[in-house]
């Protein structure tokens, strides 16, 4: 168990190093001169050289890279070329919006996905199962930005035309404005994010549970006279949890690095929106920071998932 976590941590470090080399190298081979972008077209050669020197761009690439890593390990991800603000601050400002979106979305999609999957698996082939399958199929096929625009149109614009504000057009209301405002602004984004993922989890739950319900120990549990509900939820669902948690860990981590599409559709100023702005403005330190942050989330999530495995499955804990 501890060995597993250590292996994961080492692999996580490798992932982060590979990722940092990838983004760093990407910008090194990139056309375009950040000094020129900062200094403007009128800048003299002397000024350009000065900018390059102050950014450390005139050093060899490996020196730049090692300096970056050194700074990053000391909690300094560099400064935005445009706003001159610390990248870490810029990202930290955006985390609440993204975290609110993702964590709320996770709750919604688990609350939809798992019950739908369980209902399907309990009576495969039934009308209920077919309904669940249809939901899964449509959910899996729905591009999330189409879904988001559809929601905005039906639940914001149409009521708006009738002079009735059902939901806001978008934007993020921080918790300081009150839980009500916060949640009200996030309902549509939550469901946009959740419906597609709920389909994935419904399918996963159904598949796993169908396998588990055929096991001997389920028959034993039934033979003991335990209620069907308890058999399914306590004995059956528990062993499907490992698969669900694996999927959940990587999904949440990927989204925390920026739920880019949902943020874009609902104009939420989260990490994903920051990434898009940085990409459009060619703000390299910010892009590198966001990518590495996303990678860190994934690595941390993998370790957490491994620890949860141990808690859920005694076979792993004791091994």
């Amino acid at each position, binding site marked *: 168990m501890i060995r597993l976590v250590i292996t994961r941590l080492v692999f996580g470090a*490798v*992932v982060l190093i590979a990722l940092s080399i990838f983004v760093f190298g990407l910008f090194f081979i*990139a056309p375009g001169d950040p000094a020129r972008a900062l200094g403007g077209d009128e800048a003299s050669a002397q000024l350009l050289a000065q900018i390059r020197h102050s950014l450390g761009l005139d050093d060899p690439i490996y020196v730049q890279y090692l300096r970056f890593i050194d700074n990053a390990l000391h909690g300094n991800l560099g400064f935005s070329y445009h706003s001159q603000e610390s990248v870490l601050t810029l990202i930290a400002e955006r985390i609440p919006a993204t975290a609110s979106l993702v964590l709320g979305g996770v709750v919604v999609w688990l609350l939809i996905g798992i019950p739908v999957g369980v209902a399907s698996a309990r009576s495969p082939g039934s009308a209920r199962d077919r309904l669940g399958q249809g939901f899964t199929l449509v959910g899996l096929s729905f591009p999330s*930005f189409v879904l988001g625009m559809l929601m905005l149109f039906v639940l914001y614009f149409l009521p708006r035309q009738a002079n009735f504000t059902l939901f806001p057009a978008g934007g993020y209301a921080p918790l300081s404005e009150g839980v009500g405002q916060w949640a009200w602004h996030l309902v549509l984004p939550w469901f946009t994010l959740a419906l597609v993922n709920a389909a994935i989890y419904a399918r996963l739950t159904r598949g796993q549970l*169908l396998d588990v319900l055929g096991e001997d120990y389920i028959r034993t549990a039934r033979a003991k006279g335990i209620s069907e509900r308890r058999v399914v939820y306590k004995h059956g669902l528990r062993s499907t949890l490992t698969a669900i948690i694996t999927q959940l860990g990587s999904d949440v981590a990927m989204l925390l690095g920026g739920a880019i599409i949902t943020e874009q559709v609902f104009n939420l100023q989260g990490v994903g929106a920051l990434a898009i702005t940085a990409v459009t403005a060619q703000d390299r330190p910010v892009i590198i920071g966001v990518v590495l942050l996303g990678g860190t989330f994934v690595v941390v999530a993998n370790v957490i998932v491994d620890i949860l495995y141990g808690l859920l499955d005694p076979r792993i804990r004791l091994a």
Partner: protein
Amino acid sequence: MSDALIVEPTGAEAPTRRVKQRGSGELTIRRLLRDRAALGAFGFILLLIIFALCAPLVAAATGHGMAQQFRDTGLTSAGIPKGPGHTFLLGTDSLGRDVLVRLAYGARVSLLVGVVASLVAAAIGVTIGTIAGYFGGWADLLLSRLIDLVMSVPFLLCALALVSVRGPSLTLSICVIIFFSWTHIGRVVRSQVLSLRQREFVEAARSLGSGPVSIIVRDVLPNLTVPIVVYTTMMIPSSIVFEATLSFLGLGIVPPAASWGGMLSEALNGSLYMVAWWMVVFPGGILLLTTLAFNILGDGLRDALDPKARRVGFVWLTRRRRASRSEKKAAA
């Protein structure tokens, strides 16, 4: 194997029914033809392909070019796009371009990217999965870690970084999609090969003196046709959505070339779709139907190719759901 063998009645107790032996290919097609949902999906995909191929014809028939702007006839005096009507069957967009013509050209992009990216990604995934599974040891360790590595990269962010550096283009979109898509099928193939290489027929081939390449090509891969076909089909809709997403974020197909994702992004721009619903409904609808069709087809193919496997996927609109119900009754 697919020759029909007719058992001739013999002697006095000749059976009245003739038994016909059918090959696996014939059986697969018969199963697929019974699956109405998959057939419908296949029909839709065929129509879509024809629509894409005929894009220049659509442009000629309407007299509207793909990127041609009709600021006088295509926009109202207030500069707002016109809805579906006589001259513009599916309406116009913010620049007065014909939505129908752009949909047709967008279909070309989506299908091209979806199919090409999926085929190449499948080829890479199968190659790497086979090598890892068959040779094991260091090769397996290295390649499995590589798969883990690519899988734990936040792909949309990396795609953004890459596109921001190289500038958006069709080729780059395809490359990005391939790079992040091959891992899943690679993992599946690896685990399948891992168990196949222990089987007797592989041992037999080896004892007859076959080399690894020969065993892989003649004995192992033919046994993996089903998962490879199914997973490749399933990869097409995700590639199409991936491309649409990139274009939606302005990082895919370069305007004025048409793509569905780009059309949707134009509609979102300034919330224009609130007044011009057709700018969302048509590209969004066709995108949804396309992914739906490929997903249904993939499920149908899996059921038809591998009838023994427990259907974890969809039992939707097919006649065989009755069979699965009685199966369950028998099991209960």
